[in-house]
């Protein structure tokens, strides 16, 4: 199990939960598991998000591995100038 931290605005899609434990070994699995648990998150995730794993932010990378003790945060999608 790995804990996924959401931004607080997503509370309304998760019955108030902001840290959700899912069974996952990659970012992709974690996102799929999140949607399975809370289908309301689907449009948010599909619209494009970034994920911070152990402090490092990535925009795609569904195959990026997660460890049980990884720190994982969902973030609004980043882009640059």
């Amino acid at each position, binding site marked *: 199990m790995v804990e996924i931290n959401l931004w607080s605005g997503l509370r309304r899609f998760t019955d108030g939960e902001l840290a959700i434990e899912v069974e996952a070994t990659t970012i992709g699995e974690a996102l799929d598991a999140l949607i399975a648990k809370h289908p309301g998150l689907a449009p948010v995730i599909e619209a494009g998000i970034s994920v911070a794993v152990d402090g490092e932010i*990535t925009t*795609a990378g569904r195959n990026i591995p997660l460890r049980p003790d990884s720190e994982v945060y969902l*973030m609004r999608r980043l882009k640059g*100038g």
Partner: protein
Amino acid sequence: MAKDTVNTEYKLVGTRPNRPDGLDKVTGRARYGADMSMPGMLWGAVVRSPHAHAKIKKIDASKALALDGVKAVVTRDDFPTGLTGEDWNLQENSMAGEVALYDGHAVAAVAATSALLAQQAAELIEVEYEVLPHVIDVDDAIKPDAPAIRPGAADHSVSEGFPPNVVRYIDYGHGDVEAGFEAADLVMEKTYLTEATHQGYIEPHACVGQLGADGKGEMWVCTQGHWFIRYMSSAVLGLDVAQLRVTASEIGGGFGGKTTIFMEPLALALSKKSGGRPVKIVMSRAEVLRATGPTASASMDVKIGMTRDGKMTAGKAVFRMQGGAFPGAPVDMALDCAFAPYDLPAVYHEGFDVLANRPKAAAYRAPGSPMAAFAVESLVDEMCRELGLDPIDVRLKNGAREGTKASYGPTYNRIGLVETLEAAKAHPNYSAPLGPNQGRGVASGFWFNYNGDTAVSMAIAEDGTAQVSVGTPDIGGSRASLAMMVGETLGVPYDKVRVNVVETGALGINEPTHGSRATFATGKAAVVATEQAIAEMCRRAAAEWGIEPEAVEWVDGSAQPAGPNAGKFPPMTIAEIAGKMSTTGGPIAGHYEGFPDGVGVSFGTHVVDVEVDPDTGKTTVLRYLVVQDAGRAIHPAYVEGQYQGGAVQGVGWALNEEYVYGDDGRLQNATFLDYRVPVASDLPMIDTVIVEVPNPGHPYGVRGVGETGIAPPLPAIANAVAAASGQRLRHLPMTPPKVLAAIQAGQDG
């Protein structure tokens, strides 16, 4: 060649060689967007809405088409329908549909045999409008009774009952903010405003597009990212993406504004309608300012709690931004950056993305971060003054470090904010004496940096020289830094590596040169590709020597037997291996396709001295210091250049640059005469200190350096103006009339 860094493990990294494209660029030979002509080429011109918001009732092109030499006119009717999401936004912005959404919005385009004729024909296209109510200012646009610009444009984050122009809502944070404010000795809350600015690249958008009836096309265009141009143009026109081949010209500045499409699909549509003749479109400066890439304008509430000794206890930011008539103001990234330099026990963010009748905002250097820095770093400075504390000491006391929980959620890895603060404090500029009406301001800033889709290939030529094919256009010297990293890895001199920015047909998809990613991501990819080629060369040498490839190591540009075989064979140079490659297995190359991980965030701290003329309110920048963490500077001169350029764009944003609209919603200053970017005589030398806290996620420690530098100038200058004049300006730009009014109000008060 002198090396800047104390680190001596490298031969090339940290030196300042001449850039490989320098000769072309000082002789006028380098070819930019408008420099290309093709056989049979036509010229295009665009008809633009003079209204901020108007229904397009009728377009009559008959008079234009009657002119001898006019070959085609296109309107939205020539585009496919049924697009959704951002593809639809891009199409709608490229060419208005039923409604023109801003002054300058394209409504038709024409192709003719000369530029003058195309312009004349454009003037003959008659458009009948029904003018609709418009809204320009973000605080007006968010009102419940504002004219609804695009009903239905809001996304899932917007609940019932929000004002009609709010299209995105964001809220997040951590800790108990109210308890934090309770624990503070001083709580201040202020509202800060910034106006829209333009990236202001000197090269106007330009392209030559060709599209045949068979759906195959090609394009020459000045862009930060030609794969983006290819995808977006194809999406807007309903083309198969791979059938369009896009070549990036040399690019005359972008700063984020050339990461998207504007008139490119119009050139392709005109070409197709003209029987496949290439069509060149070059924007005028007025078109650039009216219809491309401004940034958002912002209205921001910030609240901070601080103890008497300068410990910050909580922060709250509520930002409203308009990014034109389309979703996409960078309010989310602004919020993420707002408190990023601070270690706060409690922080809360709330943001509103609001529509207004202005052009679609494009990215501009650290999108959102400058506005956020202006708000938060100004308020921190106000509180330091109130409490009589040194602004650098307060930032050191609260500064984010490795292990700090970032205001935007995750925990920081190795970061260099504190190092920039310490370097700023130790710099002579921080203790230089100040005269009357002079003041000093300090501020820090943050940018994430970014990686993105990256494809690179590198290949060894017959003589052992190396070529590197990359997809990130060279906007500020990246060919040099890439050649240095490849040369360093390969163990060959810098001038034995040629870096080519190749067309879309030559590589997998690449994101643009944006997000401060070129030296980081393309660089890392090029190093990986080079290591593959090195491994192959070691295999070739091993085969010749009859030993295991693992028993070969690569040293200074040669394969050498290692371990038990050490010294058994003389080193085999890259030239020897390359010279024989056709008989030892064929071409030697390496490649990388992926999303390079290991991005390291970057912080900077600026110190600026200004003098304010108390009689006219005019601000003069006397001294300017940029301190920023580069991770490691591959080519320090171009790192300094990024720092200096970012700082000066920030100076413009702070003092004079703004979009000025009339009551009619028309942009009033669509010239470089009245859109006032800094000129050479406005500025002193820009002092720089490159702090190097290497990024463990990059083979040479690189952090992106392009963007962070534009965030601190806005608050640093506002803080300096406050120190010099005694008046706090919370609305940018700090034009002389605004500063004088503040001084006069202060005297009256």
